[in-house]
């Protein structure tokens, strides 16, 4: 990929196959789900007989995991067939780009047992609050990477939500409380609290994850930073450099 002028890869998560969604939700795949499986098996020239047996056979404890692995095989094959240089697993292992990493970072906890904050229409998200300094937990996504690498010869890309986005979409309790003692102007306190939270997420859990992913053979990592489009300008140059953003933002 390094030698190509315009290497190609897909950016966002892929739509989960309906037969995988059925298994995730604990219901038997319908005729329509199985027809979709057949159609895509034909289009991608992928022998899915074992999967069909799995889906129509008796439910086992390994069913979810094995179906997920098949879903990943389909995602990889689709991208290979499209001729992409770097491929990935479509984020099928994860529930959502924010909720998934946040649920696995010690120091953050969800504020409600349900998705209670309206994103739009009847879609909601579940913000977490930072109650203590974020710590290194088990590195994220190493298993995902290893499995994908075992299924393809192409470069496997791993997407990761960037620390600034995680901080922007979370409630920052710990750092604000810490700064409150200094009696700063609220605006100044908010800025400093957000900066400290973001840097600690970057230096702790996310750097640890990056190291472990590289150790596990990651050749391409994509940092997803949707909050950067509106909020990253709030940080000073030194903070941006520490986060790895060295290009002028505006």
């Amino acid at each position, binding site marked *: 990929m390094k030698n190509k002028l315009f290497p190609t890869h897909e950016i966002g998560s892929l739509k989960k196959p309906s037969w995988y969604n059925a298994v995730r939700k604990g219901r038997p795949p319908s005729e329509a789900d199985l027809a979709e499986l057949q159609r895509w098996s034909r289009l991608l020239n992928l022998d899915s007989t074992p999967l069909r047996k799995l889906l129509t056979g008796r439910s086992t404890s390994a069913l979810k995991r094995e179906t997920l692995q098949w879903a990943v095989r389909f995602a990889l094959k689709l991208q290979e067939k499209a001729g992409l240089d770097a491929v990935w697993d479509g984020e099928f292992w994860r529930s959502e780009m*924010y909720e998934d990493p946040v649920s696995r970072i010690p120091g953050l906890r969800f504020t409600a047992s*349900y998705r*209670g904050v309206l994103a739009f229409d009847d879609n909601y998200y579940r913000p977490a*609050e930072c109650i203590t300094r974020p710590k290194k937990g088990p590195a994220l996504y190493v298993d995902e990477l290893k499995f994908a690498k075992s299924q393809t010869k192409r470069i496997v890309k791993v997407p990761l939500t960037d620390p600034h986005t995680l901080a922007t979409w979370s409630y920052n309790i710990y750092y604000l*409380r810490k700064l409150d003692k200094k009696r700063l102007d609220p605006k100044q306190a908010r800025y400093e609290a957000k900066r400290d939270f973001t840097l600690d997420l970057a230096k702790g859990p996310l750097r640890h994850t990056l190291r472990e992913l590289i150790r596990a053979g990651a050749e391409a990592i994509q940092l997803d930073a949707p909050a950067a489009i509106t909020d990253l300008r709030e940080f000073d140059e030194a903070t941006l450099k520490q986060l790895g953003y060295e290009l002028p933002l*505006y």
Partner: protein
Amino acid sequence: MVEASLTGMHPRSEKLIKLRSAYRWGKAVEGKIPSQADVEEAHNRDAAELITRQRNMGLQYPIDGLLRWNSIIELAAHNLSGVEIPPTNLRRWFNTNTFYHKPIVKSELRFTEKRPHVFHADLLGKEWKAVLPGPYTFSRLVEDAHYCNPDALMAAYAEALKLLIQELEQQGCSYVQLDEPSLVFRPMMKPLSSDELSTVRESWRTAASGRAVHVNLHTYFEDASPLLLQLLDFPADSLGIDFQETGTAALKEYSFTKPLACGIVDARNSLVETVRDLRRRVEWLMDELNVSSSMVRICPNTGLRYLPRRIADRKLENLGKACRELEAEER
């Protein structure tokens, strides 16, 4: 006397969320797939409960929580002809993790007859607050396929808004908050020039003419201080400032002639401000800005929709308690 009110959209209750989702996706709740009437009833219950809670906590101008909407832009568009709200066309709402369907203006904008369910006037009775986008924010957050000129669109919306405000007045509304976050939140854009602000002020004159209700110009998501001098000159009865984003240092030089709606409750953090914190903030603000309590109304910096309902309600309660304690102290 310090007054208190909510600022905008409130989060839906867990029950309403579940019911709406079940209705949308055709799933059963307690053995039954909810009907549209069930959803309507749940909406009314949620709004009524929120209104009662605000009245019980002594908030002067309750709102209905705007529970049906993704944003005030779609709410306003619902009252206008000439504009369509597409089922797609999703856009991010400022720097939040929430989205709205960007309406498309396709012909002359006009205020239409009263449409049901914009605000729960029946539940609110008298003395309530409506929240709508101001002319500048509306004109910048919709897609203009007709005027091809944002200022012409802004002027047309201002005309329609004037009629809508009069209609709300008829329904018992006594306080209209016109939100103008787009005036202050301008990432990677130049601040508005004096000429541009004059044009916006003109549209405000149109919208705010011929009414008896209190009109508040509310800003949030960014520091209002660079525009403060000009904003104080707008034809609004009070000015709303997000005090999570606006420092007081730059405000000290002004002498305030109109009341301030001070956004001191943080709608974007789950840390619940204690009653003592809020009282201290009010006293500190009065001291910093050299204003009397009659010039101060306290509120969240923006709608509490960015929080789960349980936390939003706790913030609401502490806001009411702080207001009552400040009032008792004054007596």
